[in-house]
């Protein structure tokens, strides 16, 4: 994986195959999730990332293991791209004790301390102040780290979006704000909710350098993220990317999609991140159909293993119901 401080994308064959494989993994993982949801293995809300894979995969290329990620409730793709074990993510969606968050969070609340993955936040806009604080801590402790905060364009209407952008800029904090603009906040089109639907202009109002990115193109996303992260690491404060993207599936599983035309969806699917990148790689001769077959087989294996892991994982005993509300202390007898 090409990560680190490089500001340019080195699209050698291995890296291209890696990007493709990660996007395919997310795609198939989400498709499997939908299937398992129908089979009632996964319950609650399930928000799928299909169509938006290029964003998580592209941005993660620019981040190192010490950097932090704050994501939304549509975060399976971010968790996978960040390298969280697929079995643990799947087990979390099952609600099993082996899940990323011991099953307490479910689909919307995937956390992983080892990967500095801070959720899984299901209050729209709620993750932004958190990212500001993480970055503030880094700045105060002289850690050369970046906090990357993902949110949708719907969050731009929340006060916390504005408060956080202002604070991050005011205090010159190392935050990378990624607005994944998929055009709809649930069923409300951006044009119907924002007086100025150009979200990156909002960032500019707080003097944050921003860039519009083709969120359907993984290479463009990676390149933009690398530029932004490099700028942040120089100590020049936050950066903002507005990634124009599209979700091919409904907002969540129970959504009749009355708010958009099927034709519109089909139009976007034609420029889907997987199909476009694959076509481009094949056309340029960097990969062959056999490579695709290999990727599909490997991904199938990974997902099969993840489902098996989730199926076999234990349920948390009810006796443990009230654990992890407060931190155990020595006097509770837990650590002593």
């Amino acid at each position, binding site marked *: 994986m090409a990560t680190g401080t490089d500001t340019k994308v080195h699209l050698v064959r291995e890296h291209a195959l890696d990007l493709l494989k990660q996007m395919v993994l997310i795609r198939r993982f989400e498709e499997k999730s939908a299937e398992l949801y129908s089979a009632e293995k996964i319950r609650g809300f399930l928000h799928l990332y299909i169509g938006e894979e290029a964003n998580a995969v592209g941005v993660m290329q620019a981040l190192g293991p010490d950097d932090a990620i704050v994501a939304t409730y549509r975060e399976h793709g971010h968790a996978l791209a960040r390298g969280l074990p697929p079995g643990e993510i799947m087990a979390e969606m099952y609600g099993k004790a082996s899940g990323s968050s011991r099953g307490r969070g479910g689909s919307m609340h995937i956390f*992983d301390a080892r990967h500095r993955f801070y959720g899984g936040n299901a209050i729209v806009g709620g993750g932004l102040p958190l990212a500001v604080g993480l970055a503030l*801590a880094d700045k*105060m402790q002289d850690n050369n780290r970046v906090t990357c905060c993902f949110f949708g364009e719907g969050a731009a209407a929340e006060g916390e979006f504005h408060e956080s952008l202002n604070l991050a800029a*005011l205090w010159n904090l190392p935050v990378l704000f990624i607005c994944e603009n998929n055009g709809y906040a649930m069923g409300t089109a951006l044009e119907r909710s924002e007086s100025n639907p150009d979200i990156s202009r909002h960032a500019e109002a707080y003097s944050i350098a921003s860039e519009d990115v083709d969120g359907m193109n993984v290479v463009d996303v990676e390149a933009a993220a690398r530029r932004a992260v490099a700028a942040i690491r120089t100590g020049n404060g936050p950066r903002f990317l507005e990634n124009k993207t599209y979700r091919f599936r409904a907002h969540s599983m129970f959504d009749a999609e009355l708010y958009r035309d099927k034709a519109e969806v089909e139009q976007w699917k034609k420029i889907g991140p997987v199909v476009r990148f694959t076509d481009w790689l094949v056309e340029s001769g960097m990969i062959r159909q056999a490579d695709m077959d290999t990727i599909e087989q490997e991904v199938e294996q990974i997902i099969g293993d993840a489902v098996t892991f989730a199926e076999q994982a234990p349920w948390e005993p009810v006796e443990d119901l009230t654990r992890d*509300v407060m931190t155990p202390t020595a006097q509770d007898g837990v650590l002593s």
Partner: protein
Amino acid sequence: MTATRTLTYREAIREALREAMQRDERVFLMGEDVGRYGGAYACSKGLIEEFGEARIRDTPLSESGFTGAGIGAALGGMRPIVEIMTVNFSLLALDQIVNTAATLRHMSGGQFSVPLVIRMATGAGRQLAAQHSHSLECWFAHVPGLRVVAPATVADARGMLWTALQDPDPVIMFEHATLYNDEGEVAAEGQVSCDLDNAAIRRTGKDVSLITYSGSLKKTLDAAQQLSEEGVDCEVIDLRSLRPLDDATIMSSVSKTARAVIVDEGWRSGSLAGEISARIQEQAFYSLDAPVERVCSVEVPIPYPSHLEMAATPQAEGIMAAVRKTLRK
């Protein structure tokens, strides 16, 4: 060692802030006007000169933003103290406090604790009317994942902050705005620390248990003193911790006196007083010799004129009347 000093509540808070900043470089104070202005209640006056603006951090009027930033900074290894000017303003940050600070540990399956202290002023008594005078401690005390404390004495104001900062989970600390000028005894430097867990018996007695906290403690002690002249011997419990509640101390006292009066500046409906009353009923029902009485605020937004503000909030006379009622006098 019994050497004590006399400080005001405000000085005690300031001294506690200074001590915390000196002892732990991860500690910083953040909030509206905590720096150059010196704090809305002057608690942090002079600290910005001493510790600099990075650690005495003025914020924009963005309660949700800076409270959430406090949560993030706590996750990131700092020990932030967030000051929110009054509990009424904390409602703008309630999303961060309830949906994030209180839930993160649980949602993450125990991976992330939030060692954050949020201080805020609360309560009526200074004619600040209906947007600066309410007592909403109960709302926070309702939420699992938070710890809620209310120092009612100068000694607790001095001692609680450091203990709160040692707590791995979010601690909400309520400072009643009528207390800041009060003077009280504080232990010598180095001996000021105190626990956050236990209620304190501020006056022992055998006839009736008066259970209260924060700004109402003074009024309750005043009522107890007047009642003692009538031959009624009241025990006064200062809860100190509103979440968790120290049931053991409450039940032990009520089992002794068989009567309880709860004095709570919050509105009666859905109040802490209601919660405590329910617990007494659950745990000490067979000890009761009279119905539990509650002295709470009248269910009206706090009015501006002094006489109406007084009438709306618990006063010694009302406490005394409630005590007599439990004695069927």
